[in-house]
């Protein structure tokens, strides 16, 4: 099996690793870097539990090869707190019932960050559309949408 060496920055930390060429990004993150916050729910790109940010854009890490991340910056759920403080979205998810079992949550947070990067004051419909690649079986999405709307308001400082 061919092996390749990649250099990536994950959550601000540079990593150099020799990996099999067919290694999935999800497996690289979970099994090589031990960042198990990124989940696997379907392995087919449908559920969004494995979502991470690649240079700020959401990608499904179960559909990407680790080599595709070469030279890029990856952010996982472990990388969004700063100085021990929860990201406003994380705090909002706690306060507004944005999670229950929490399994979809890392992926939802990534999708939410991307939504707010795109549009800092999204409408509810925009938030729902932005979440359409992420499944949640627990919440009926009500708490998640509320959490994102409330966080958006906080982050805008209004």
């Amino acid at each position, binding site marked *: 099996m061919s092996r390749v060496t990649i250099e990536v920055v994950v959550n601000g930390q540079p990593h150099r690793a020799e990996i099999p060429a067919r290694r999935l990004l999800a497996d690289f993150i979970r099994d090589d870097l031990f960042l198990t916050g990124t989940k696997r729910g379907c392995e087919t790109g449908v559920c969004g539990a494995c979502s991470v940010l690649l240079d700020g854009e959401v990608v499904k890490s179960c559909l990407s090869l680790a080599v595709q991340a070469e030279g890029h910056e990856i952010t996982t759920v472990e990388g969004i707190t700063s100085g021990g403080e929860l990201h406003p979205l994380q705090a909002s*998810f706690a306060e507004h019932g944005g999670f229950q079992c929490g399994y979809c949550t890392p992926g939802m947070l990534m999708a939410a960050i991307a939504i707010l990067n795109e549009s800092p004051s999204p409408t509810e419909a925009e938030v*729902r559309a932005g979440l359409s690649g992420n499944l949640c079986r627990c919440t009926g999405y009500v708490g998640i949408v509320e959490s994102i709307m409330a966080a958006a308001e906080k982050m805008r400082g209004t």
Partner: protein
Amino acid sequence: MTMTTQARLDGDASTIGRPTPQVNAQEKLTGRALYGGDFRTPGMLHLKVLRSPYAHARIISIDTAAASALPGVHAVLTGDDTPDRLTGVHRKQHRILATSKVRFVGEEVVAVAAIDEDTARDALDLVRVEYEPLPLVHNMDEALSPGTIEVHESTGNLSIEYKVERGDVDSAFARAALVHEATYETTSQYPGYLEPMATVAWVEGDGRLVVRASTQTAFLQRNRFAEALGLPVSAVRVIQSTVGGAFGGKTVEECNSLICAWMAYRLGRPVRFVNSRLDDFLGARSSPAERIWLKMGVDNQGLIIAKEVKILADCGAYEGLATHVLQVSLVRSDNMHRYLKDVRLHGRLAFTNHPPRGAVRGFGGPQAAFALNSHMAELAEKLGIDPVEFMRRNAVRAGDTTVHGFELGSAGLTECLDQVSEGIGWITKKARRPDTGLKRRGIGFAGAIHVSGNREMGNWDGSIVTARMTTDGRVTLSTGESDMGQGAYTMLAQCCASELAIPVSHVTVLPTDTDVSPYGHGSIASRVTILAGNAAIRAGREIRGRLLALASETLGVPEGDLTVSGGEIFATSALPNRRLTFGELARMHIYRHGGEELRVTATYDPPTFLAMSRPDQYGNVAPGYSFAAQAVEVEVDTETGQVEILETFVSDDCGKAINPLAVHGQTCGAAAMSIGWALYEEMKFQDCQLLNGNFADYTMPTAESLPNIQSGIIESLEPNGPYGAKGASETAMLPGAAAIANAVYDAVGVRIRELPITPEKILAGLREQEATAAARERRHA
């Protein structure tokens, strides 16, 4: 129990009834929570299973030589390697891996343990199994026809049959002013938890088996592993991982944990088994498909006085918990009708070559609620009365003993009806002129009953909570019940914190570890709030009592002159300096002659009855009964048959809402799950082969496909409940499907009696309408 009610409690500290973030928010939101498949131990092997491609076949031979020879493979095991005793919930029907015969597509035949998942998968490709296909039992009708091949010998494909009759049903029907009968069909729903089932198991140096699994029922799992492996219960330890959703699917029916436990025990090495999503679709227990025939008789006041129910259900290849599910479908919904005395029930559960069915959120309730509420809407129309009014007129009330012996300490069905009517604007919407365009709106509604707890196992439905006060004055709780996301630990922490007037953050709830947690049946039957909540209150009070006694003795102040507040106990005004912190008291409790750690164990076993032990199923099975109602407004596109849900309002009578944030979350999640089941979720089969075992083909609701679900809480205070609370996680799953069917009927006049409510069925109904209208016109022309 020490009662020291005179001592004053700081009521402001209590979070009971206040929206409270989950106690495990931090770990879940930062990605630190360790779910079943996140855990690893040194030397861990990875397990994969080969599943049967046949729905019914004899296993002729299995050749594992090539797979075993693959580098990195540690074991390739077959059914012959498994213990020869059978396993199963009630009826023991299969070995850990199939031997001699397979009975469904997906049945586990070979298990491989290898150094990594890729190697294990590669090894599976090298296994050769020769099967001799057998004729299939395609469906439940075929199953029970004479002369059909049997899935299990000498069963006639009948798993169980229930017959219950009360009163004089025939004369009640004879008295009825209106009788209506119809048949309804429901399909099998996959639980759809986002975390596929996952387990890590290993053997300790002393030979004991440890299983860390994503489970709702750690202790029941321990019993099951011990039984299946022929081990003493004391030689098995089950630790509950963080659970990524369960919905009934992670109890004692799934086989991931059992196979993993056995492999680890057999190899003496750590083994991890994480289901792929396809594994999970094939191996999980989905809900039984049911055909429900209903006949109801109503008197001239619109009161339901006679009912007959016949249910035929498909439990697939192995019965698991499906027998109980059928019992619930059969018996429970009758208990919503206040004036019903005469009822006849007949239920049969058939073995087929479908995958085994079992417990899924609502546990038979959703199937019955779909039939009942559709039927009541049809009856109301015939009676010429509003369906909400019809249900209200027949709604049970607090203090009633129902037809099957449920004693209702509280009942908020009527209030749920009022709240959803108000919430959706029922009266206004009903009064508006029917739409005549291509898109037509309609409203529908449904109501439901569910249990909070259910005495069904060994005549004990108790819950035990152990509380320890650490020397810093904080509390650690242990329980045998599980948090799978519903917020059980937050609720327990709130109850205990409230009794001690300390912040919720001062209470830690430990995940179940059967070596140290108190025994418990786990999180099933919406039992945790009402049972464990009571136990947590008792534990909190017991600790408070001990603290007060010690403080009184130490300070020389009578207990009645002491106040408990802010983690301290102090003497009221006159003696300002006499105070002790909980930490000081906890240390004093140890550091004295004969001292000990401040640790209490409290149990609550409700005053209920094991009705399942009686052939007539009569008795008060639960300490409380929850009710729910849902109203829906849909828009049906008459060209495409598409149903859009414009608005929906769900009310849950969960008694006191200890944590409204969690209750709303449960209600909305359950409603979403029922909307999925109503409109498109369905395990689809061709010749018993699953056609849609992935999330692209088995569609679950997305944020975009759902409306903003509105939820309301009815707090009918339950005398048996902790602060008046009842269960809140399943009831809201029940009314959705019928509410939508009724709304579709209201919109376009098409009555769908078979789930799911697809565009094709609606279009077929519309075409039929047109044909009838055309025929009528021709007759009149």
